[in-house]
């Protein structure tokens, strides 16, 4: 496998390039892409709707790794990838053009493409409760006529009523609860969704949604699992726990959960309950500032990870703010986990 440097043309500039995408379940999808066509667009034209969100190169959802051939993203554009990531072969498929026949690795199973195609739908607010000073739990009721299903870890986009703004939130409820979706939403001092939930939202109100989206999903085969969540990054972990619980045999699961301070801590009782009915689950809760809760350690989720927690076949799932993800990826790497066994879903902070 070689990554060809530079832009030597072995294919005439007008000839279509042959593209192969390899998924984590070993499945391969092949199609042709025109020279000026983004891989994502070409894939869609061939009937393969890949995981993606913004389609303009800023979110990083559609990332793939070039393993053979040559493919480039336009220069001088703001990109969600760092220089190091690009030189390691990572490409945003919504921006990438192939210079010749190329192959990419994607970080999710091919089944994700067929299992639950995203749908646009409307759902009613059935419950809105404040579970901490800065966290709202939002429950929506999906009509039975909507063919909606999702894989634990995926998210939905929700439109803020009365605006053109959409926000993305991971689904916290389990896969089997297709008609009742729960989201955990961090409330900021100001922001269109925060303002709406604080001041305008009421039970019975109808919201516009799109989903499910995202490739942050569980491996099909049970392996020792570490879930690391910062704040409302707990949402996809709750859904994943619900799925892992029924896997036979249930693998050992370690959940590391961190919040800023006691007033922002939530779902302690929910997690304690899960420990009681998931025998293989261990939960470690930690507060950045634990004043008033000295029964909990002070620090970050990463600071309560011990080297012995990471086994050779461990898989880690991370969800939270970018600094937490970066530090955790580095640490898990040091502890011997290969990059493809460290799955992450970053919060993308919204502008407003």
């Amino acid at each position: 496998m070689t990554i060809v440097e530079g832009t030597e043309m072995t294919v005439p500039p007008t000839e279509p390039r042959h593209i192969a995408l390899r998924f984590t379940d070993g499945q391969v999808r092949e199609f042709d892409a025109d020279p000026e066509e983004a891989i994502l667009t070409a894939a869609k034209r061939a009937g393969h709707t890949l995981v993606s969100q913004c389609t303009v190169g800023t979110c990083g959802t559609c990332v793939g790794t070039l393993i053979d051939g040559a493919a480039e993203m336009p220069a001088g554009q703001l990109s969600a990838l760092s220089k190091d990531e690009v030189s390691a072969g990572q490409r945003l498929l919504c921006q990438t053009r192939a210079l010749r026949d190329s192959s990419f690795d994607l970080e999710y199973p091919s089944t994700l493409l067929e299992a639950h195609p995203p749908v646009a739908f409307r759902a009613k607010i059935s419950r809105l409760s404040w579970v901490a000073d800065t966290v709202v739990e939002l429950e929506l009721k999906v009509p039975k006529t909507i063919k909606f299903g999702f894989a634990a870890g995926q998210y939905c986009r929700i439109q803020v009523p009365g605006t053109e703004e959409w926000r993305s939130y991971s689904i916290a409820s389990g896969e089997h609860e297709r008609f009742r979706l729960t989201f955990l939403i961090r409330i900021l001092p100001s922001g269109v969704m925060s303002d709406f939930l604080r001041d305008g939202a009421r039970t019975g109100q109808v919201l516009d949604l799109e989903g499910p989206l995202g490739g942050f999903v569980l491996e099909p085969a049970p392996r020792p699992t570490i879930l690391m969540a910062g704040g409302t990054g707990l949402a996809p972990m709750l859904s994943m726990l619900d799925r892992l619980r029924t896997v036979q045999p249930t693998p050992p699961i370690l959940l590391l959960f961190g919040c800023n301070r006691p007033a922002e801590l939530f779902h302690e009782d929910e997690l304690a309950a899960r420990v009681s009915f998931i025998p293989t689950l261990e939960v470690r809760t930690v507060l950045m500032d634990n004043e008033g809760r000295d029964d909990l350690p002070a620090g970050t989720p990463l600071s309560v990870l011990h080297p012995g927690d990471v086994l050779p076949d461990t898989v880690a799932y991370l969800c939270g703010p970018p600094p937490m993800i970066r530090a955790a990826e580095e640490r898990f790497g040091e502890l011997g986990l290969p990059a493809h066994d460290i799955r992450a879903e970053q919060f993308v902070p919204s502008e407003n």
Partner: protein
Amino acid sequence: MALTESAIGNSGKVARQYAPYVQADWGFANHWYPACFSDEVAVRGVVGVTIGGHDIAITREDDGTVRAISDRCLHRGVKLSAKPMCFANKTVTCWYHGYTYNAESGNLDTIVGSPDDKLINTVSVRTYPAEEVAGLIFVFVGDDDYGTPPPLDTDLPVKVTDNDDTPHFRDAKIVTRGLRRKLYGNWRLAAENGLDPSHLLVHWDNQIVVALDRAMPLGMKAMKDDATELLDVENGPKGVMNRYDLPENYQPVFENPIVDIKARGTTMFKPFRVSLWLPGILMVEDWPIPGVTQYEFYVPIDDHHHMYFEVIADHASTEDEKKEFEFKYKNFYEPLGLLNFNNNDVFAREATEEHYERFDGWNNEVLADADFSVVAWRKQAAKHGRGFFQSPYFDED
């Protein structure tokens, strides 16, 4: 006088401890459930049942093999079982337009009046694993992509004590007779009622108790915190058991002077044992009389109905012993046990359903000490349920 938050209690905090059980309105998916009795399905017969929202047709091949396929014709969705039609071995034909399915694969083998139709051999209906044991037909019902089902024995009660010779499903000499009826009420209310040591009051005036002059306690007082034993057979079934036969676990309560009530009966009987197993099976050993076992299955149909199986099991090897069992079943076990006695349980469940359905009963109960075994069962079920059925219907929101 402490008041609860509402007049009907607020148990949401407790309910969180066994949340998966509270979510199992439609029952636990990916388990073996009894569909019907063996003698209900003749060769080339079709019997339709609904389990956790799955409509399933049970049929029998010429060699006796039992098969289970989806009971909805692909064509226009009618139930195949509405008018059983099997023209050839190992097929089920839809009575409406003649779509004919292979009973093993579910494949559309032919269409009676349109044998050259292009649809033939391109579509199929879902099939379900089926097995027969001790006069019952079991099917494995759940997610289409579950993979290889665990053995049927992981969902059948087993003998866990060694102090008598009560009948169990895998015994070589087992004989069974029973009946099934569709009832109003969530499957969980049915299951919990049978295990509950304090529900015996509903039976204090039953014919079988009076006729046998049997000392039927008003309740069973637990003598220790863990009087309800957890059953966790490795690679086997899971459940909980109340050993009323161990005086160190339970003491019978025969009277309550405060309301001037005394249990009737002067005959002290051998105490029975009650156990409740996933996915919803009650085993009552030494009931209605010593040496006999009564099994009850609470099979979810939808979130407000269950199929109630009542089965009496005994041992019989010779023809005479089998005839004697038949006679006793017809003239004693069925009329006095399965009907008169259990009808009080049926009355209780149907009366309970309204509160759970319309007032969110799972989060609004006021439980007492005597409910420890119900809570132990809920936790055990929450731990070991393999998944969830959910409503397949589009017409309800």
